[in-house]
């Protein structure tokens, strides 16, 4: 086993697709997860690495066609500084601000966070809550995959081995409110124990409610029972009680090195209740 597998460094997407078609490669964005895995010898090293860093076409943030588009190679630091993100996806800004240290935020990318597919990935519940669409590219052209179907199982994604994530599209919705809450072991540089992102409208009944959690299941998930309990309901204490009860019935967190199932379940209910009360 070699610590440094061979690395392909394409200068265009076309070249990248060609390399992917020629042999299996593990795509590398900022490397903030992969390099830790390589140097720590955590699991088998990839046979080949595809370094995406020179693909400038995957960088940048723009508002286009009623959506906020964030290129896959956009770093967390760039998202933190983006006015467009602050205006349309403040929860995404809040989420990336909690990832690692400043150095990690300068190097780590949203595409890397999405493709690493960790159940504790801090941006993933935000993408679920905001109905994001993940745009992939490959030899067969581009396709769009809704976030809700993007992480089918533990640490896996809906992409084929010859596809790359190109950008994240977040629809801009009038009147949508958003909230984000991360619970970690310390105030910075901590992997989540529970992470919650939510989006909704009020008229004054609850509408278009999206409640998403990380670190409480094998994948980032939508709490669909809690959402259903609220949808169309009046903003009353009774609706909140029903939503929290539905959440507690649908979550099945586990014990691991960072926290316990009991804590995760209890705290998920408490932070959802707080969020809904604040939004009522």
């Amino acid at each position: 086993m070699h610590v440094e597998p061979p690395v392909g460094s394409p200068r265009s997407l076309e070249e990248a697709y060609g390399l992917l078609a020629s042999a299996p490669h593990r795509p590398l964005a900022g490397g903030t997860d992969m390099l830790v895995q390589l140097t720590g010898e955590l699991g088998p090293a990839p046979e080949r690495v595809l370094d995406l860093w020179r693909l400038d076409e995957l960088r940048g943030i723009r508002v286009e066609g009623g959506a906020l588009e964030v290129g896959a190679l956009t770093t967390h630091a760039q998202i933190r500084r983006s006015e467009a993100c602050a205006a349309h996806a403040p929860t995404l800004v809040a989420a990336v601000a909690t990832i690692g240290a400043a150095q990690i935020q300068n190097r780590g990318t949203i595409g890397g966070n999405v493709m690493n597919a960790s159940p504790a990935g801090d941006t993933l519940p935000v993408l679920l809550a905001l109905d994001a669409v993940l745009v992939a590219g490959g030899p067969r052209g581009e396709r769009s995959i809704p976030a809700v179907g993007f992480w089918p199982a533990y640490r896996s994604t809906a992409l084929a081995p010859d596809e790359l994530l190109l950008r994240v599209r977040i629809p801009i919705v009038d009147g949508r409110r958003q909230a984000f809450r991360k619970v970690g072991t310390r105030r910075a540089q901590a992997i989540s124990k529970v992470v919650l992102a939510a989006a909704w409208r009020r008229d004054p009944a609850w509408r278009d409610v999206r409640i998403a959690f990380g670190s409480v299941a094998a994948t980032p998930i939508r709490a669909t029972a809690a959402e259903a309990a609220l949808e169309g309901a009046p903003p009353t204490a009774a609706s909140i009680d029903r939503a929290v009860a539905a959440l507690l019935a649908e979550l099945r967190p586990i014990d691991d090195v960072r926290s316990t199932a009991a804590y995760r379940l209890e705290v998920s209910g408490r932070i959802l209740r707080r969020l809904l009360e604040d939004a009522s």
Partner: protein
Amino acid sequence: MTIQAPAGRPAAPTPGHATPLPLRREGPAKLTGQALYTDDLVFPGAWYGATIRSTVPHARLLAIELDPAFDWGRVAVVTADDIAGRNVVASIAEDQPILVPVGGEIRHQAEPVVLLAAADRDTLREARRLVSLRTEPLPPVFDPLASTVVFAHHALVKGDVEAALAADGVVVVEATYRVGHQEQLYIENNAMIAIPRGDGGMTVHGSLQCPFYVHRALRTGLGLDDAHAQVVQAETGGGFGGKEEYPSMIALHAALLARRTGRPVRMIYDRHEDLAATTKRHPAVIRHRTGVRRDGTIVAQDIELVLDGGAYTTLTPVVLSRATIHAGGPYDVPNVRIRSRAVATNTPPNGAFRGFGAPQAEFAAEMQVGRCAEAIGMSPLEIRRRNAYRAAGVTPTGQVLHDDAAALEVLERAAEASEFDWVRARTAAERAGRGPRARTARGIGLALGWHGAGFTGSGEAKMGSVASIELTGDGRIRILTASTEMGQGTKTIFPQLVAAELGVDPDDVEMAPQDTSLVPDSGPTVASRTAMVVGGLLVHAARRLKADVEGRTGRPFELSWRDDARDHGPTRIDERFSPYPGRSFDDATYSGDAYPAFGWAAAVAEVEVDLDTAEVTVLSVVAVDDVGRAIHPVLCEGQVEGGTLQAVGYATIEEIKLVDGRYLNDRLQTYLIPTSLDAPRIETILVEAPFEDAPHGAKGVGELPMDVGAPAVVAAIHDATGAWIDDLPASPERIIAALAGIAPPGPPGMSTVSAP
């Protein structure tokens, strides 16, 4: 920071109070990247070493198998069969092997079995994967309360506990406290390089606290005499006790490989190996039964303390001694019974960590005093005022305290600086008026502590440490000690003390390198003994040197030392420790002066608890520490701040979970300590109640702040929430369990068993 002269005692000028304070000796080299840590040292032709460890907690080693497909000629392989000396890591007991032999017993998950070395890291990495161990499993023991292997035990009895607990008007309060492991997390991982010598000897350069511990281990394991073993301390990035003992093991491993290959061998641990294999703070289970009268007088303490030593003896008996003697806390109680034992489990051995048994014992003692106060409706400050030791107080070992018993001084200073009563009234009002949907809760907590200065009991008398000062023939003043610098300031305060005695500038005083071929054995750099014991020896040596030179020249030392060196040649003064007058300890009856003196500390913490998540923010800590005398107040303050922050981590987030005797938190991703964002505002107040038998009055500062931070924080969590958290760390998981009435996490520090 303020320095408070104790009430009624004049702040007499004492040696070493130089102004302005000297900069840290090694500071500029560290700041500019010129300091050479072990991994920075270059030895041409050196190979890289690696350790193959067991992966089971308890087993018989049946065979070591090397994959025949690999060309083993490229790699040096060392097993227990290759050990020329005795296969033990020399320590208190000789039970821990350097490498487990075939047929031998594997007693923990990270136990070294085979050593490999290769010319490059890739070959080494490849070879590592091709060694396998064939083992026959044996049943492991993980519960310290169920362990039948006892490393050491004590029973201290004063008065009649049962009669006092049964007396009329005595409220009896009972609780059991459990604390888990804590990792030292020095910034530099363990590292050693061994260089074989032409004369058959071995030189080792490394990151270490105790050069002569490593020296003895090399002599024993390699079968060398004194002259053929040489240990040199490289610049060392922190120790906190974590480099007191395990460096002996790593040095032996590097040396065995160096002997096999005839080349220098580098044994540099990465963080994962360091976390997975090296020693941690002992977990403990501590049961208290306390009798307290309604007027606040504590009349009886019945304490049972069990330390989990892990798989081998290491330093555990000494840790147990300190835990036992400190178990009652700094309170003068007429009836005390302390029964303690340290036992074996099939987990990696636990060892020294700042405080050395006292933080575990004093966490329990302080939480218990808080419970007693609540039981009788008294303020936590008042109950401590009533029971804290005063001069002439008698400890459970029968030690009579002297005038420097500064418990009340540190307590009152802490209460005043933190406005304890006022803040506590405010938090109580807040708690009373709190609605069901409050977001946060604030609390304030107080802890009082004591820390025996230097070695326990007769340790120092047996050690007979030597410290030397040399006036060289070319007119240089040189300090020769084995005391190591690891960031705490040894290299700064020693020249300061000596210069003050001699009347010269600290820059005129050199420090000889910590090299066992050059310096005398001034003992290990542990137990907060460096400033007090070795510093004291140096003050005495300087006085003798000064008298010698002035006797010869008839002129003041500072005007005549260079002439004396030229005319008279070199002078060397070797000062050997002799016991402090009137202080003695009887090991057989475990009674007498357990320590030459005690340092005293109080901490007041304010916290904010998030009532949704039970996340704790430690807002501020007022830390008041009696250090005897602050030789270098800035370095002293640094010690108090660092120790307080380590205590905050211990109290709130630092935890190691184990499965099948293996640490799950064995990377920095999973073993978390506070960052600067988690650090509270720390206000340090240094109190000086001098130790009268040390020429400079110092009692030591390294460990003291570690004893009081955790109970202060957890008492503040109680004040905020009303919940008593008896297990450390008081993690959000444990707090939420208390608040929501759900099942708490399992006991800290105890391994679970994986499903088959």
